[in-house]
């Protein structure tokens, strides 16, 4: 059960109003520290910042339309050992879904964590954001422009730029499993912001005089989310279809991956790849010359570095069941490979085998960590 309220926006400044809200959370000890996107002094982007002193809240922006790193990994560092105090984290929906997956892999503990989820109209590549910010004057605030469309769910990226592909096909614009939800969709951000609180928190915030909530919810928000989700699903299916008709056999897949330089950036960026000792970073792949030569001999020749197909297929087999689709692998790839589309399209099928939706609930066991005795019986040739 949850409760909600409309936060009245002061001076037509939604971000300033929220900054005051966060200041209250910190000063009145609802949280002892807050992880939140804060503008870089250069103006070129945002970085997650762990704030203790409310004075540092200047220039924070919960709606920063760029996602340079996946905060789920940061949350892992902050909670895997008891932080000793309450940590609030302002996250986008894909970040929360990654957090939920990491909880199940014992990489995040929720006990001292307060998840503050924000509605997300989508994000720009960090490099695009930096460019846009340098072209200022071209239409005011980058966040503000995106927020304008959020009211009706008609998201219009800045002229000449696109949202990241992962965001264009993201079917979860609104956060799930958050303790606090900060809603944009369906309301005029110059006037009011929707805030939803998990039951226990609602009591605490009312008691501390921060916000009084009711059980109302917001039907206008719900209907905008429904429309936006439908639109995104449509776009997602188009992207999947295009990918599937491009990759019909192994050679097609090799072609799609052909410019991969095996830098591992996609893996480093991935919130689900949490292994401390990833096999691809071990000496397992530092073979002796005669081994390489033997392979070259067998195939006539072999691309160096070797094991590109293996790298992608193994990464798929290890984590695709938990891929939440943040697309940061795409953003990290120096050669614009369609890694995220590959992972999402394959993920859809593999997750479907087990009726599993990553990020949906901490109570659902990830497919790779469990089994059923009476499943997949045809797999062992016994039918």
């Amino acid at each position, binding site marked *: 059960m949850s409760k909600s309220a409309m936060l009245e926006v002061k001076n037509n400044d939604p971000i300033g109003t929220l900054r005051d809200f966060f200041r209250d959370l910190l000063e009145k000890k609802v949280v002892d520290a807050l992880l939140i996107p804060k503008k870089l002094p250069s103006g070129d982007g945002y970085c997650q910042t762990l704030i203790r002193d409310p004075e540092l809240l200047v220039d924070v922006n919960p709606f920063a339309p760029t996602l340079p790193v996946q905060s789920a990994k940061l949350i892992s560092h902050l909670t895997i050992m008891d932080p000793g105090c309450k940590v609030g984290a302002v996250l986008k929906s894909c970040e929360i879904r990654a957090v939920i997956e990491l909880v199940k892999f014992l990489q995040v503990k929720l006990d001292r964590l307060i998840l503050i989820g924000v509605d997300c109209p989508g994000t720009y590549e960090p490099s695009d954001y930096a460019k846009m910010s340098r072209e200022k004057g071209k239409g005011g605030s980058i966040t503000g422009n995106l927020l304008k469309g959020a009211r009706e769910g008609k998201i219009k990226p800045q002229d000449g730029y696109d949202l990241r592909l992962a965001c264009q096909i993201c079917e979860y614009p609104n956060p799930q499993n958050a303790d606090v939800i900060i809603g944009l969709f369906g309301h005029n951000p110059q006037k009011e912001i929707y805030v939803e609180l998990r039951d226990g928190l609602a009591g605490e915030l009312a008691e501390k005089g921060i916000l009084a909530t009711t059980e109302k919810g917001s039907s206008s928000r719900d209907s905008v989310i429904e429309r936006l989700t439908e639109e995104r699903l449509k776009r997602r299916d188009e992207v999947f279809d295009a990918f599937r008709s491009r990759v019909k056999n192994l050679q097609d897949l*090799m072609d799609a991956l052909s410019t991969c330089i095996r830098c591992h950036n996609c893996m480093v960026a991935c919130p689900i790849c949490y292994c401390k000792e990833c096999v691809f970073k071990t000496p397992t792949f530092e073979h002796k010359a005669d081994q390489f030569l033997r392979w070259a001999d067998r195939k006539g020749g072999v691309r160096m570095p070797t*094991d590109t*197909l293996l790298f992608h297929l*193994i990464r798929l087999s290890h984590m695709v069941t938990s891929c939440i689709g943040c697309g940061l692998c795409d953003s990290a790839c120096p050669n614009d490979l369609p890694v995220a589309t590959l992972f999402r399209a394959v993920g859809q099928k*593999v997750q479907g085998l087990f009726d599993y939706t990553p990020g949906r609930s901490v109570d659902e066991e990830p497919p790779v960590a*469990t089994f059923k*005795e009476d499943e997949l019986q045809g*797999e062992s*040739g016994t039918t």
Partner: protein
Amino acid sequence: MEEFEPRIIAFLCHWCTYTGADLAGTTRQQYPPNIRIIHMMCSGAVDTIYILKALIDGADGVLVGGCHPGDCHYQTGNYKARRRVAILKEILDQAGFTEDRIWLRWISASEGKLFADTVTQMVEELKKMGPNPMKKLWLA
């Protein structure tokens, strides 16, 4: 032209299939010599990376052998192996590689004949399929 002789890499669990293979030998069951056996403690210890590495680097087929359901000496390793194989096969399917070259089989320590029959059958099927196209992908 020489007849194509498929190469099979087999990952066999110590307690059941490996012992079953041993029994096939000591009881003089006949089966084709196309198989190279890698001794594992449990089918649950077979990471998908071993299977794929074998296929990409030259094997025409991979056999994963474990204890029958309920008989795994580590309780549930074989159930986990089954999921892993299913996941890997679905991924390969999606990647456009639909050939049935990965076989998972439950063969107990007393089923020497079943082991020999399985290898015989697998070799026949692989001969029909021809060489594994993966092993020629120099770009892989």
